[in-house]
């Protein structure tokens, strides 16, 4: 049979993505739709997972009855709002340092990526139970007391929370550092040369050239950091949902509802980043964008 080029292209394309398509249908799309149904039901384990529709009861319970869910949700959002800017700033700063013409560049890059390799959930948890991750362990100062002395309590709580998790937060920046380095190396030297000839200072060069040229990577890194933070094993929500679903009571319908609230939250956050990024991202010259 003779097909025209376009049809053949299309068939070949579908063949290549076929395994992915099957996987997507079976392991993502179907469970995703299934979990909507679960979220509006209670599940009877004994009668072979039969569903009793209960309307919005699960969602009402989450927000108005369950006294654990809302505080955890608030904590997760608060932590991520603090962590994401810290991780991004730190990753950019570190990438900037590594990208200087220095010896041992390969060594530093390897060290900064190390946490990605060895950060097995439970190991990290055990390590940080010993307070290895706090700033105190790093610089040997009792900073929390100082913070409480000089800052209002509400604010101090957040600062101390960050300080005690500092290494843990920094450990989550390995991939971001690497992507920023790649981005920095991708900026053409002629741009810098031109700026210098025009008399721009290093400071101006950073804000007017480096940062705009990096902005697409900043978006990628922001989204990655958000997703990573929300699915992190230390995230109390992750553990809470697992407990609801599988420890003791097996409240699968309620767990699915919680999972859905969580998903909508992440989706909105990323949507916000994405939409706002249209305003400040610079897609240079000949890229497809």
């Amino acid at each position, binding site marked *: 049979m003779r097909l025209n080029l376009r049809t053949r292209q299309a068939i070949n394309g579908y063949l*290549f993505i076929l395994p*992915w398509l099957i996987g*997507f249908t079976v392991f993502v799309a179907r469970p995703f739709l299934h979990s909507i149904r679960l979220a509006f039901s209670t599940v009877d384990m004994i009668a072979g997972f039969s569903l009793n529709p209960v309307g919005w009861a699960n969602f009402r319970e989450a927000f108005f009855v369950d006294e654990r869910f809302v505080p955890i949700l608030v904590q997760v959002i608060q932590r991520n709002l603090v962590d994401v800017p810290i991780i991004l700033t730190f990753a950019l700063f570190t990438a900037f340092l590594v990208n200087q013409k220095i010896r041992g560049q390969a060594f530093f890059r390897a060290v900064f990526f190390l946490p990605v390799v060895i950060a097995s959930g439970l190991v990290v948890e055990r390590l940080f139970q010993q307070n290895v991750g706090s700033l105190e362990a790093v610089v040997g100062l009792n900073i929390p007391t100082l913070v409480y002395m000089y800052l209002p309590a509400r604010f101090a709580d957040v600062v101390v929370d960050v300080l005690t998790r500092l290494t843990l937060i920094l450990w989550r920046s390995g991939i971001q550092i690497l992507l920023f380095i790649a981005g920095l190396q991708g900026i053409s030297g002629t741009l810098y040369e031109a700026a210098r000839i025009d008399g721009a200072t290093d400071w101006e060069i950073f804000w007017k050239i480096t940062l705009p040229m990096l902005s697409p990577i900043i978006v990628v890194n922001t989204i990655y950091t958000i997703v990573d933070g929300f699915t992190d094993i230390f995230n109390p929500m992750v553990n809470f949902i697992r407990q609801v679903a*599988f420890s003791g009571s097996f409240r699968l319908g309620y767990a699915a509802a919680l*999972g859905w609230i969580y998903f909508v939250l992440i989706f909105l956050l990323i949507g916000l980043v994405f939409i706002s990024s249209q305003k400040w991202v610079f897609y240079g010259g000949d890229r497809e964008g």
Partner: protein
Amino acid sequence: MATARVNQELSQPGIAGEAVSLARKPWLLVWGRRLQRWFFLALVYLLLIDIAFAFLMPVIYMASTSLMTVQDFLDPGVYWIPRAVYWDNLTLAFQSMDYLVGLRNSVTIVFFATLGQIISCSLAGYGFARFRFPGRDLLFMFVLFTFIVPPQTIIVPLFILYRELGWIDTFLPFTVPAFFSHGLRGSLLVLIFRQFFKRQPYELEEAAAIDGCSPLRTFGQIMLPLARPALLVVFLFSLVWHWNDYYEPMMYLMKPQNFTVPLRLSILQQGLQELTGGQAGELFNEPLMMAACFLVVLPPLFLYMLTQRFFVESIERTGLVD
């Protein structure tokens, strides 16, 4: 940049006299510039070494504590370096974790999952990068969508699905999705391959097509060998993520003999109890815990040491950032 600053200074009248005297003694200018550069570099090194230390400290702590006796560990006079190297923690942890059984399970899962993801994700990435077909952009949106769906949203239906299939307490929930581009962050791996293949020139494929080479063969014999940086990155990511994964094995594996190495860590105390006939209360301590942790991270750490040079360079060449 130093030139720019000096030029600026020269144009300012207030320091013109100084500038003229500098211009008369060019070696002073050179020295000033060099000093500035050295100062800057010293600062960069200082900061980098500091950051590197903060990154490495937990690992060093883990390694050094695992070689300490309890006395050394509790002694405030012993800092970082144990009085004598004490290997018993490692052997005891090795035995109580039933390390070889865990290793066998972990290696089985990691091997098949990584293999599956490399094959299926490279196929999908190539398909999305190089072919035009109706609905391609929508389907690609689904790839990105999959990445942001948290596992918690679909874990309950997946659990029910695997139970119906009889996959609970087998390795199939980890390996089968991997052969269909899913499993741990499969969508991210598809994305890496797509970005890589998109950057390659079309000429090779066109030449192959003119010579009558089928698309699958073009892919396997021409494009895949070209994709070595992407393959290496995906290989290491997939391997490391599957090795370190804890959430999913905890869900789907029930019997201790099926536990992966990180899961074994969670039942270390029970293992010790069984091994020593009920003496876990006395023998369980922080150095032992750290020894067990060290054993968990050892295989990926070793692999990373061997491959990090290629790896870190490769990640930049995959074009992930474009």
